[in-house]
Structure formats: C-alpha cells, structure tokens
C-alpha cells in the first residue's frame, strides 16, 4: 500500500509573528519556516507503517513557493521515499489544496492519505475533511492511534473528554493529532541521501486545477494587550468592581 502525506511549509512555531504594517498579512519575511508540526507527525506515522511492513511507499506532497522543496527534503530525510511539489506563488486556501490533492491522489492511487489535522499558520482544520469529501472516502480526523488491517483501518480519535474508535474502509483519509507519535530527528547521512531522492514538480495547470482564492482576508490584527491587574482593598471593593466595571455579576 502506498501512503500519501501532504505537508505544508509554515512559519516555525518558535517565531513570534506580527501583522505587517498595513495589517493585510502576517509578517514572515526572513522568518524561519518549517514543516507544519502536525504534518511532521503524519510523516512519522507513515514511515512507521512502512517500517512495520504495512506500507510499501511513502510519498510526500507540498504545494506553494519554490522553497517548499526544502520542506519536502526534510520529510525525505526522515525516511519518505519521494516527493511531489506543485509550484505556485498564489495564496493557497484549503479548498484549492484539497482539489490539488485530489488530482495527486488520482495520479498516484494511494491506499491511505495521512495529513496534519490543521496547519499552525491559519489553523483552518479543513483540508483533510474537504479531501475526504472530494474523494468520497472515509475520514478519521484527530487521530491519536492508527491500526491498519487488511481491508480497513482502525483510527482512535481524540474527542472532548476521551477517545473514540472508528473502523474505516480503505482507502481513507486520516488527520493526525498531537499525541499520535513523537517524530524522529533526521540523521546527517539521511539528509545527504534525501538530496538524491526523486522529487517531481508540477504547475497547478498541469493538474487542471483552478486555485483562485475564494475567500478574501480582510484584516490581521494583534490580540489586545493585557491590562495589568489591580489589588483591591477589600471584598466590598472587589464586588463593586465586578458589578460596575467588569459587569459580570
């Protein structure tokens, strides 16, 4: 079974971001970019399935600017077999990504697509679900456990107050949650080997997918600054403030 792992290049989780001066976007010029951490978990899981003899090949795909190829190389260094890059400078929204992925799935015919539950830059949490719908496949979202059986995959999902276990018919789409695994560190020799692994590049037009954005971003603002606390003299003053200032009682 082939596994497809879509990965996204996002601003690194350690970078403190801020809106651009004109408030139309998040400032990321020269900021460190990395693989979306949830996607890293997806790559790790796919590699583990390959190491367990369940998967035969792990293909990673990333869409966007040229530098996405670096992100693909990172996944190849972890142990994925080959990469697919769809290059575009157009801002990609979840529906466009899902459509591009469907085109890749049609070409590659994987038995399983594993991807992060959301990307840490836009936190959309939509691509996996949209892809399952476009493919008309089953979906197991927020996975914290994956067990592949002959015709099915058993997915344990993180839900409010506990977990839920589903059995999906293969092929299926799975989105990963934080506790599924802890990704490995890439080793130096593997980073070298990754440079030689195959990486194909396409344009969206090659795949006949319309990626025109459909949502318009109106404004990006910083969260309001937290005001410093005050120490009140007595209970009466506290009640007064709660009633008249905070208006919560």
């Amino acid at each position, binding site marked *: 079974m082939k596994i497809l792992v879509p990965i996204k290049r996002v601003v690194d989780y*350690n970078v403190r971001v801020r809106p651009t001066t004109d408030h139309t976007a998040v400032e990321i010029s*020269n900021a460190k970019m990395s693989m979306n951490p949830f996607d890293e978990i997806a790559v790790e899981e796919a590699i583990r399935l390959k190491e367990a003899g369940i998967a035969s090949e792990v293909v990673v795909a990333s869409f966007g600017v040229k530098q996405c190829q670096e992100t693909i190389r990172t996944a190849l260094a972890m142990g994925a077999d080959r990469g697919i890059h769809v290059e575009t400078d157009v801002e990609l929204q979840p529906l466009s990504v899902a459509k591009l992925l469907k085109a890749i799935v049609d070409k590659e015919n994987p038995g399983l697509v594993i991807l992060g539950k959301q990307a840490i830059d836009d936190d959309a949490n939509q691509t996996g679900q949209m892809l399952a719908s476009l493919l008309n496949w089953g979906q197991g979202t927020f996975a914290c456990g994956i067990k592949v059986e002959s015709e099915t995959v058993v997915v344990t999902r993180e839900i409010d107050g506990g977990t839920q276990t589903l059995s999906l018919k293969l092929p299926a789409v799975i989105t990963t949650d934080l506790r599924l695994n*802890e990704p*490995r*560190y890439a*080793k130096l020799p593997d980073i070298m080997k990754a440079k030689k692994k195959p990486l194909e590049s396409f344009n969206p037009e090659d795949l006949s997918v319309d990626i025109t954005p459909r949502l318009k971003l109106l404004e990006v603002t910083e969260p309001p600054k937290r005001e410093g606390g005050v120490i009140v003299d007595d209970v009466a003053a506290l009640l007064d403030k709660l009633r008249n200032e905070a208006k919560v009682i």
Partner: protein
Amino acid sequence: MQREKMEYDVVIVGAGPAGLSTAIRLRQLAIENDLELTVCVLEKGSEVGAHILSGAVFEPRALNELIPDWKDKQAPLKTAVSEDEVYFLTSPDKAYKVPNLFVPKPMHNKDNYIVSLGNVCRWLAERAEELEVDIFPGFPAADVIIDEANVVRGVITNDMGIAADGKQKDNFEPGMELIGKYTIFAEGCRGHLGKRLTEHFKLDDNSDPQHYGLGIKELWEIPEAQHKPGLVIHGAGWPLNESGSTGGFFLYHLENNQVSVGLITDLNYSNPYVSPYLEFQRFKHHPQIKQYLKGGRRISYGARAITKGGYFSLPKMVMPGAIMVGCDAGTLNFAKIKGSHTAMKSGMLAAETVVEALSNGDEGGQTLTNYVERFNASWLHEELQSSRNFGPAIHKWGPYIGGAYNYIEQNWFAGKLPFDLHDNSKDHQQLKNKQQANKIDYPLADNSISFDLLSSVYLSSTNHEEDQRCHLKLSNADTPVTINLKDYDAPEQRYCPAGVYEIVTSEKGEEQMQINAQNCLHCKTCDIKDPTQNITWISPEGGGGPNYPNM
C-alpha cells in the same frame, strides 16, 4: 560509544561570515584547480542566520574579493551609508556631536552598507550550496576529536534526545563523528570548542588576555517621518559612564522604516550592580535616540558577546589539523567596530592555505603555519595592527582621553605611532566587592521606549527543548551562592540579557541559583564574565536558541 562517521576533506564549525566565506573560497579554489574537495558546515542554529546578531554596518572589502559580482547576485546589501554621526552623550538629556574632522578615521563609513548580518549569512549560505557545500543547520558540534598524536581530526555532533536526568528518550539519536583532513573553527565570539582548543593547545600563551563586550540590540519599525535611510549614528558616554563603565552605542537606519539600535557594554565593568540590559533600556530614552524611536514598535530583540581585544589579544590561530578563524579567534577590528569583513577575510585566507596544502599532497593533520604567513601579508593584518592600541587606549584612559589619543593616532599617524598599549587585565577579574559598589537605581520600563526583560526575550523567539540536560554547566554548584551572591550580589542576574540566572529562595528558606536555560540567547556572557569562571556554556540540542529573523 560506537558512533557513525562521515568524512569530508574540510569540516567547518559555524555558518557565520567566517565559516561560510571559508567554505565558499575552498570550493571556488577547488573548482579553479580541478581538485576534488568535499566541504561541510555545521551550524547550531535551527537555520543559517538564526543565531547571527550584529549591528550591522558592513564593509564590503572582503565580499568584493570573494564574490565580486555580489550586486548581480542580489546580495542583501541594500542601504548604503549616507550620513555618519558620532555623539558623546554627556548627560541623560545632553549630547555633544563630535565634528566630523575629529572622528577617528576607522569610524568613517563611506562606501559601507547597513545590513542585517543574518540575511547576509543566509545569502552566503545559498552561494555556498551552489558550490556544493553541505550545510547542516540544527547540528551543533559538541566536541572535538583529538587523536593520540594530539591532532584535531574532526568534531562530534550533539546527541539528540537525552532527557534532563541524562536518560535516553525514545527519539534518542547519537551524535556523529565528522572527520576532516582539516577542521576550521568559526564559532564566533567565545566558541565553546574554540575555548577548549585554546586551553588544550595553549594558543594564547603569547597574547594579551582577550577582551569582550556584550552587545544588546533591538530592531524597530518607526514612523516614516523619523526615518532617514542610510543614517549611521555611533557614540559613547551616558549612561555607562555613570557607573564608570565603558562601551558604545549604535543606531542605524535600514530599509523599510526599520532602525537597528544597540548598546555595547564592555565586559570589564567593575560595578557588580551594572545591568547591561537596563543600561540599554534607559539609554533609549536619551533625546538624541528617542527622537527616532518614539511612536515606533519594537520587532526583535537579541544579544551577543563581541570579541574585541584586537591585535594583541589574537591567539595562535593554527594547531595540528585545525585553524581557528573570525571572532572565534578574535579578528574584529574594534576601531571600526566591525568584524564581518575581517572574519570573512580570515576564513578566505584559511581556505587558501588549506587548498595549497592539500593540492601539494598533504594528507591533513598538519599545523598550517603558512596560514600565519598569509595572514601577516594580508590587509587584514595591516588593519588590525594599525588599530592595535584603540581598545587598550579606551580601557586605560577612558572614552575622552583614550578617544583623543585614538583620533591623533588614527588620523595624524594612520595607526603607525611607534608604541604599543597593552591591556593585561582580565574582564572577569574586574568586579568590585558589593560593599565597595553603589547600587544602581534603574528607571522602570515605560512600555513604549523601554521594556521589561521577559517581553524582550520573547521577541528573540528563543526556545530549547524542555526535557534536556542543562547546557550551562557549573564547575562548582555552590559557587553561585557562596561566592557570587555573597561577594557580588549575584551579578549573573544582571549581566545575563535573557533572565537565565535567578536567585530563588527554596522551601527551606535557603537562597539558591535557578538556571532558566530555556531562555538562553547563546550570547556567552556568563561564560566570559563569571568572576570565578565557574560557568561553562556547552551546546544544547540542535536547533535550540534564538530564531532571529533580520538581526
């Protein structure tokens, strides 16, 4: 432990200006001479540039030699210096503008550029990769391999995935041996391996003690009306002079309404109550500085120590199998307050020396004394030699008389006066006992020009994997309390620009030192300034440390 090995002709430690220039020059010469030569660069930061912090006014002399068509290749040297101003801040609200005529010549910046050195390094890394250099960000060199014959054979990268208690975690990945015919150490100021090599090979036996400064820098976005692209301001005086300390400040107007502002505190200061961080915060309130910052927003913060002893403090830079270059050795020109072009040149000379040796059939492991000859014959030597007295003059006589001496020596005699000034004091031995020192009453942050420490550290985007061994090692666990706290009121609480060191009271009511290693900015000040040299900085897990975007 049996470790995996990888072999290269040359292994370079550190992807800063020195290391990357070494790599580029090596590969250029290999291609010119049709020589097979493999080169790798290890970098502890999560990416190239992540740990680079500098002012920076950049002198393109070395770059012109290394990559003459850098303009066509879109090097990020975008803002040419248009105006040069020097001030003595005489009080919290007064400044004396030094007439251009009296500014020591090396401080003139015509033909230089205001840059983000981090971005210059990112660009250099791309050039190096085009020449097939393997760059490995996120892989610190943790140790040096020295064989039985006392020859440097390479380095070992960090073990990854070791918990705070020393146990191996599930994702444990042992470090690798990187073996090179030659290893070039380019770690920057106070490199932790450079320090070990200096001790091991007694490289500084014939040089003056090294001297350091701590540079703290912020990047601001300011209102367009206050922005003068190309304006470079330097100066000294207040606030450091209040405590009898020395140092200097800079304020550079870059592109995109950004200014880079910083204060360098010489680490030979004597009052243990000095806080370089708070000196910097109050400095920004001086009207000469505030006029540019007011109404702006701060977008980044960071700190880094500077090797500034200069010519007389330069150690021996060669040893069997290795060369030490750039600020790891101490090639910064303090008179110019610039180290990038000199670091680059020292790396290029190292590359030329290594290629010469290898193409003559050298198998590696030799002490390349040819490097010293090349160094002595280069403009780098001439430049450092002519400003040899600059730092010692200021240390000896202070910024006014020392500054006047420097003006006379540099402008009238072009650095060729027949005497040498030596400064044989050691920075870490200068602290006075707390009883003999005055406490300093620093003003509170106003949250528009000045800020508290933790909100600053936050802007450095620093982080370290939480569950790992502490990378700030104490030789003696009691010293922070029995000596540092008792005699100097724990100065590490104040000189650390990241709040790593904190005296806390335990449940039993005992005072103890808490080390918040996660905050560390890798500036190395603690390794330098600790009065008993009890703190040793070692490399944390790869990728840890700041993530500077444009510093």
